[in-house]
C-alpha cells in the first residue's frame, strides 16, 4: 500500500468523523439531514476506495447501496417527513452544544485509545478504520442520547450504522450477503421508524420524545 493510498483512505475516514462531529454540532433539523446525506456519500467513497485498494469488487456493491439508499433515498424520505410534520425548526438538545462537543471529542479520544495500541496482526489502515468507525458509532449513540426529537434520533441511529459499515469494510473480507442483509434490515428499521414517528405524532401532536416520558410517568403514577 502506498502512502498516497493510505492518505486518501485516511482523508475519507477522517472526513466521516468530521461529519459525525458536525452532526452533533448542528442544531437545525434540515441541516442535520444534509450533513447526514453527505456523510453517507463520504462513506460510499470510503468503501469504494477500500474496494479499489483491496481489489474486492463486491465492496463496490456495498458502496453503491450506501450511496443510493443512505445518500439519497433515506435523506429525501426524512426530508419529506420533516416537511409533512412541519418541524423544520430548531432541535432542542438535552445538553448544550459545548458539553456535547467536548463529550464527543472525549469519545473520539477514547476510541483511539482503545484501538490504536493494538498492533498484532492488523494493518495500519484497518486499525485506523476501526478507530474511526468506533468513534463514529459512539458519536451516533451520543447523538441519540442528546437529542429529543424522533427524527434526529433516527439520523443518529443511521450515522451509527455508517460507522458499522466503515468498520466492516476495513476488516477485509466481509461477505456480500451479510452486507445486503444489513442494508435491508436498515431499510426495514427505517420504515418502522417512519411509521412510528407518524404514530407518535398522531397520538401526542409532537415528535418530542419528552412527551412520551411524560406519558410514561403518568401511567406509572396511576398504577
Amino acid at each position, binding site marked *: 500500500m502506498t502512502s498516497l493510498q493510505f492518505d*486518501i483512505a485516511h482523508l475519507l475516514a*477522517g472526513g466521516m468523523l468530521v461529519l459525525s*462531529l458536525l452532526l452533533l454540532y448542528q442544531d437545525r433539523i434540515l441541516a442535520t439531514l444534509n450533513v447526514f446525506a453527505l456523510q453517507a456519500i463520504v462513506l460510499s467513497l470510503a468503501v469504494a476506495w477500500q474496494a479499489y485498494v483491496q481489489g474486492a469488487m463486491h465492496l463496490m456493491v456495498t458502496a453503491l447501496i450506501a450511496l443510493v439508499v443512505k445518500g439519497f433515498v433515506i435523506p429525501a424520505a426524512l426530508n419529506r417527513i420533516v416537511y409533512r410534520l412541519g418541524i423544520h425548526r430548531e432541535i432542542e438538545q438535552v445538553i448544550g452544544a459545548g458539553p456535547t462537543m*467536548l463529550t464527543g471529542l472525549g469519545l473520539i479520544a477514547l476510541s483511539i485509545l482503545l484501538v490504536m495500541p493494538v498492533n498484532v496482526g492488523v494493518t495500519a489502515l484497518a486499525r485506523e478504520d476501526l478507530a474511526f468507525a468506533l468513534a463514529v458509532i459512539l458519536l451516533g449513540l451520543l447523538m441519540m442520547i442528546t437529542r429529543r426529537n424522533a427524527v434526529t434520533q433516527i439520523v443518529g441511529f443511521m450515522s451509527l450504522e455508517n460507522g458499522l459499515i466503515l468498520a466492516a469494510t476495513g476488516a477485509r473480507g466481509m461477505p456480500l450477503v451479510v452486507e445486503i442483509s444489513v442494508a435491508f434490515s436498515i431499510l426495514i428499521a427505517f420504515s418502522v421508524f417512519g411509521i412510528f414517528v407518524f404514530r407518535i405524532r398522531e397520538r401526542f401532536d409532537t415528535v418530542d420524545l419528552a412527551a412520551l416520558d411524560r406519558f410514561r410517568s403518568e401511567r406509572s403514577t396511576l398504577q
Partner: protein
Amino acid sequence: MAMIYDLVAQGLQMILVLAVAPFILGVTRKVKARLLRRIGPPLLQPYRDIWKLMHKEAVMAHDASWLYRGTPYLLFATTWVAAALIPTYSTGLLFSWSADLIAIVALLATGRFALALAGMDVGTAFGGIGSSREMLIASLAEPAMLLVVFTVSLVAGTTQLSAIAEHMIHGSVGLRVSLGLVLFSFIFVAIAENARIPIDNPATHLELTMVHEAMVLEYSGRHLAMIEAAAALKLTLYFSLLVCLFLPFGMATGDKSPLAFAIGLAFYLSKIMLLAVLLPIAETAVAKMRVFRYPVFLGGAFATAALAVFLLFVSQGF
C-alpha cells in the same frame, strides 16, 4: 555586507506590512460595499483616515492616566513587531528566529491586554463592556489557536514560522485532512481576533453590539490613528500567517537573490489580495451573532482543531 543585506531584507518586510496594511483594509471595505451595491470608499481611504486622525488634536477625558496615552503606541508596536516577524516574501530573514508562532500569538495578547486596560481607564460603561467581551473572546479563541499551533508544529516538527513555511513548500506533507481542519479552525479564530462579522462588526457604532469599537470609544486624534493602524496591521498579520502556514508556495526559501525576493513579493501580495477579497464575501453571507453564541462558534473552532490533532495522531501512529 551580507549582514547589511539581511538587515535591509528584514527592514523591507517591516515596512512592507506597514505599508500594505491600510490598503488591504481598503480592499475589504471596497469589496464589501460593492457586494452591498454601494460604491464604497476609495481603496486609499484608510491611509487618508489615518493621516487625518494623526493631525487632529487628541481629546482626552480629565482623569485619563498615562496608561491611556501609552496604550495606542504599545498596541501599535506589538502588532507591528508581530506582523514583521511573520515571513511574507522570504523565509529565514535575519530576526525570524527571535519569536516563534507561540511568541507571536502572545505578543498580540500583550497588545490586547493593554487595550483592554485602556478601555477601563476612564471608567465608562462602554469601555468596560468592550474590555470584558474582548477577554471572553480571547479566552475562547486561545485554546483553539494553541491546538492549531500544536497540529502545525506536529506536521512540520517545529514552531519556527520560517521552518514551517519551508517544510510546507519542500517537505512531503502529503494529503492531510488535519491541515484542512486546522485551516478551518484558524480562520474562525482569525475572524474572532480581528473583530469581524459574525463575532464583531468593525463598522458598527450600535452600542450593544460593539466589542472592539467599544473599547476604543473614548480615543481620538493621533491615539485613534494608532489604534486604527494597529487594527489594519492585525488583519494583514493574520492574512500573512494564513499564507505562511498553509499556502507558502512562491516564497523565497534558499535563494536570497533580489529576483527571488521579487517573485516572493509578487506571490505574497496576490495571495493576501485574494484573501482580502474573500473575507468580505464570507462576511456578507452571515449575520452578526449575539454575545452568548460566541462559545458555540469558537467552540466549533476548538472541536475542529482537536479533531485535527486526533486525526494526525492516528495517521502518524504506525
